[in-house]
């Protein structure tokens, strides 16, 4: 699953959210191997009238543009609790909300692991179970570790950028560099741009808005 935007644009217009949808869908198909990416718009209810005026406008625009394009499926509004559940391959939102979502997911994952550890040490019986679970939990910790993800792609430019977390160690930095190299080999820039053109998501001669998108650990 991919979230666009996670911090490049704090404020956006509806046309930018449409661009994020097409760029995210192309990215999902390129790096996640998804076919016919499902694109959802983050809101506070499933009904198309739910959300801020911006979200309502973006909902209609995404629905129309994606139906016209015929390449991706717009699955409508997605609520916060559905983000980790896989109802959409791409979650579209503004950079402020996306950044909060990303960090919330990281914090919740970390707190959950800590609680599991606490519970697993709470009694002799739990300790025995904890011992048995330990290898699986360590593996899970690696899966949800943001450093494994390497950071966020900076999309919408003519070349690719990758922005790691400021707090990453050498391991996360190395992942970010490898992520940038792989995305270059996969021609992420060319494919996202082609998706924007095919979806008529750009005004004539205009450049897309740059956006940060990430595949959060889950």
């Amino acid at each position, binding site marked *: 699953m991919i979230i666009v935007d996670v911090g490049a644009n704090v404020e956006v217009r509806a046309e930018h959210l449409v661009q994020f949808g097409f760029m995210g869908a192309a990215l999902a198909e390129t790096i996640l191997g998804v076919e016919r990416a499902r694109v959802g718009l983050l809101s506070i209810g499933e009904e198309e009238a739910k959300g801020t005026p911006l979200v309502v406008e973006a909902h209609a625009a995404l629905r129309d543009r994606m139906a016209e394009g015929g390449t991706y499926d717009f699955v409508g509004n997605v609520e916060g609790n559905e983000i980790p559940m896989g109802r959409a391959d791409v979650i579209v939102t503004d950079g402020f909300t996306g950044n909060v979502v990303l960090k919330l997911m990281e914090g919740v994952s970390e707190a959950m692991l800590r609680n599991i550890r606490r519970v697993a040490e709470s009694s002799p019986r739990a300790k025995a179970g904890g011992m048995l679970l330990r290898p699986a939990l360590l593996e899970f910790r690696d899966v949800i570790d943001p450093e494994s993800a390497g950071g966020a792609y900076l999309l919408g430019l003519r070349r690719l950028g990758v922005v790691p977390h400021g707090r990453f160690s050498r391991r996360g930095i190395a992942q970010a560099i*490898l992520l940038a190299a792989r995305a270059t080999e996969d021609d992420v820039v060319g494919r996202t741009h082609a998706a924007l053109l095919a979806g008529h998501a750009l005004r004539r001669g205009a450049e897309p808005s740059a956006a940060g998108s990430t595949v959060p650990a889950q």
Partner: protein
Amino acid sequence: MSITVAVDANGADLGPSEVALGAAEAAAQGVRVLLYGPAREMGPAPQGVEVVDAPVSIAKAADPVAAVRAAPDASIVRAARAVAEGEADAFVSGGSTGPALAAGLFNIRARAASTGPRSRSRCRSRTTR
């Protein structure tokens, strides 16, 4: 063909030396790295990493757009310029989005950035990462 990635060593919480160690790990896996940052703090260049001395950091600048304009020698600006000029295929920032975005917009997409106020206002957004 080997891929070249331009890396800004400034901006990471653990400092340029930690970024250099990460660059070394990536280089060991076959990526060519151009590393922009304070050479003094980064130590000798590991195999596959080319260190370019760029001690100026704008990673913590309050206004990334103004900082990118005022400091053409800043490490992130030089990394973005390397990509714009074809010396590298992609760039990695040391950890702050704002300067990375601004440097990317002004250098890699210079044509668009100079055409009007719309693209300028777009990259004035502040980020927290």
